[in-house]
């Protein structure tokens, strides 16, 4: 049975400012409002609880507000900062469930406040039951400085109505399963997130609450008002689905650890991470799978969240390997005022067959250096690649420069990552090719090649061969003592470039430097360095 929490923060904008200690907003018992320009005049954008109690609301022009409450303090509204803080809060709610969505503004709200949806289907028992969970969230938000009202029901619409209109003195409303139809009936029409014109029309038609709306004939209602009213009614009653799109990708497996006291030391975090890794990886054995990507989320007491992701080239079930990959990142993790919960999510897995497992186990039992090309060597290389990529990013992953068919020398090598070819350890490391002795390779290519050829000043002698060479503007021209060439290399015709064909020369200058020059058109360039 689906269960959804609607989390309503009625004074979110002003609470945010009070929380950060903005000078005008620091007293909770003083009326305070934020301003926004509308049609050239300043109107109230959001008001805090005290001001609301005195009758102020969003949309009221500033002059009228000042007339009502002379000692009202005001400041400018900051919607971008509001959005950012709300996103942070939504991230923080991820410690209760990964399925958190932000409410679209304008869904019947009064112009201020903010809302979140939390899908807690099936996970309430982890927090001691629904009522306990709602109380926990409410108290945690109060500690962070936000006043909140929560409602839980079978559908988002019903939960929203409960949070806005049915909360008790603890700011909580719990609609038991299946009970929303009866309990919603007596609520006013605003509880369905309908717009004001629609509510007006319905009132004129004689419907003042949800039960009355439900009893009206549907066909003529749709013709008169459009589909919105019926859609919202059906969504609230559960006849129409209202899917929530979570803000972040949801991992298929998540393990969590909450701490009775916030922790802050590296050793404590490492110990917690070890427990989480063991808990996350052991069920994979039954499914014959291994982890490929794992994400750690750290929830701090000040409401902020840090995340850290680690990936491997080969699927693994070894907690020690993943712990080592996390080790570099943990040093950079800031515990702030303390960490109150940690969660580890399994983002990607791959099959890890028993044959592979046996190979790995047998290989790991070997002593000494692994034989070249053996499965253990491949395993060691994969672990090294994981560590290199973990710290250096994908740029740092080891790459093999493999020959690539092309004319232009700068394109004749293509680097392929080590990890891409890895499927099974036995096939990964190609056996070293000792049959081709190195000296049979035609050695007309330099050991170093500049990705962009450097211009050079060359004077030409008979047969077009280079005679003197100056490498830089200031450098004196040197005589070219020996030269070999020309080797004509055409441009890669499949690329759309109209570069001229190049005539390459291997030259040796007076001081012994051996270089690879070419003439493209009328200009000369240095492309590489020979031993």
């Amino acid at each position: 049975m689906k269960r959804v929490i609607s989390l309503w923060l009625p004074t979110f904008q002003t609470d945010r400012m009070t929380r950060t200690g903005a000078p005008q907003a620091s007293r909770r018992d003083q009326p305070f409002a934020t301003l926004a320009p509308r049609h050239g005049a300043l109107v109230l954008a959001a008001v805090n609880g005290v001001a609301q109690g005195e009758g102020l609301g969003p949309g009221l022009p500033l002059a009228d507000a000042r007339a009502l409450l002379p000692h009202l303090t005001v400041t400018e509204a900051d919607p971008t900062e509001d959005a950012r803080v709300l996103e942070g809060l939504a991230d923080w709610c991820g410690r209760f469930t990964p399925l958190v969505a932000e409410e679209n503004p304008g869904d019947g709200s009064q112009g201020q406040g903010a809302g979140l949806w939390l899908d807690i289907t099936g996970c309430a028992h982890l927090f001691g039951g629904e009522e306990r969970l709602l109380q926990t969230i409410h108290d945690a938000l109060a500690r962070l400085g936000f006043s909140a009202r929560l409602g839980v029901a079978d559908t988002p619409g019903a939960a929203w109505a409960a949070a806005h209109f049915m909360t008790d003195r603890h700011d909580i409303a719990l609609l038991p399963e299946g009970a929303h139809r009866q309990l919603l009936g007596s609520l006013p029409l605003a509880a369905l997130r309908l717009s004001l014109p629609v509510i007006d029309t319905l009132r004129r038609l004689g419907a003042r609450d949800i039960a009355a709306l439900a009893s009206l004939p549907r066909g003529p209602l749709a013709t008169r008002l459009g589909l919105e009213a019926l859609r919202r009614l059906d969504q609230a009653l559960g006849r129409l689905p209202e899917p929530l799109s979570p803000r972040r990708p949801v991992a298929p497996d998540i393990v969590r650890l909450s701490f009775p006291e916030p922790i802050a030391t590296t050793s404590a975090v490492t110990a917690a991470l070890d427990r989480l890794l063991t808990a996350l990886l052991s069920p994979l054995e039954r499914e014959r799978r291994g982890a490929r990507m794992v994400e750690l989320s750290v929830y701090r007491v000040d409401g902020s969240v840090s995340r850290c992701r680690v990936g491997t080239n080969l699927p693994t079930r070894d907690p020690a390997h993943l712990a080592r990959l996390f080790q570099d990142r943990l040093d950079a993790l800031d515990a702030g005022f303390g960490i109150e919960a940690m969660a580890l999510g399994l983002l990607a897995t791959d099959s890890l067959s028993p044959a592979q497992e046996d190979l790995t186990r047998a290989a790991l039992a070997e002593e000494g250096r692994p034989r070249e090309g053996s499965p253990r060597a491949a395993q060691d290389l994969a672990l090294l690649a994981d560590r290199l990529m973990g710290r250096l990013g994908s740029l740092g992953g080891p790459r093999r420069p493999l020959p690539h068919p092309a004319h232009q020398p700068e394109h004749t090598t293509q680097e392929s990552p080590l990890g891409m070819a890895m499927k099974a350890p036995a096939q990964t490391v190609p056996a070293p090719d000792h049959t081709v002795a190195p000296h049979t390779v035609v050695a007309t290519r330099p050991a170093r090649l500049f990705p962009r050829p450097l211009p050079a000043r060359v004077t030409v002698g008979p047969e077009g061969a280079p005679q003197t060479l100056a490498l830089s503007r200031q450098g004196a021209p040197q005589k070219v003592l020996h030269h070999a060439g020309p080797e004509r290399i055409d441009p890669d015709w499949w690329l759309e470039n109209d570069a001229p064909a190049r005539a390459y020369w291997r030259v040796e200058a007076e001081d012994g430097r051996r270089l690879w020059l070419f003439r493209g058109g009328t200009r000369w360039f240095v492309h590489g360095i020979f031993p």
Partner: protein
Amino acid sequence: MPHPPNNLDALRAQVRRVERGGRPPAPVRSLGLSIVDAALPWGGLPLACLHQVVAGPMAFDGAATAFASLLAARLSEGRGPVLWCLEAGRDDTIHAPGLAALGLSPGRLLLVRSPDGAGVLWSMEEGLRCPALGTVIGQVDRLDLTAARRLQLAAEAGGTTGLVLSRLPRDRQGDPLLDPAMDSRGAGGAPGTATTRWRLETLPSHPPPWGGPGPARWHVALERCRGGTPRRWTMEWDDETGTLSAIDDP
């Protein structure tokens, strides 16, 4: 009183045992040149430790790169692939077909790029600890004592050989052949960093009868050798036969 030669050798062996700290002696690989093997106290180049190859101050000098590739290929035969660590965009000019002629085939070469110099040292250390690799080459401009010590320990732990490829700063324009005091202290840092330190500079080649540049010729200086004396040679690398030979000095 004449000392029998056995006592001196036995003493040398004992000193070496003490230096190793009780570990088994590292394997040794010959460079294929008896004159060089004789100059080294181990009879060849020791594996599982750190060596350094320094390039001369001239720009566009390919001798050090070639010598380092030759060493790496020989030292990693039968032990594993070669990991080449460099800084992205800085001397990022490795050309695999050219290295293949020096004995380093593309199938045995792995490249790792780091965003900065510290990353190069870190990736070298990680590679040295991996027993599945044969040699780790790192392009590092300045190697200080701490970093060299870390790399030595990592090489001994993983059984992989380390090669640091450095470059002299450009302002050291002295002629090494005329001024023997002009060694590469500036690049290598204080003595006691690498097990052996080599300095390479390009020399004019001896052209073949049919013209064109001759086989590569280098001035190779063994500047520092733990337990040995500095030496200099002129060496020639013939890419057609794949052999390294020493030319007698005049």
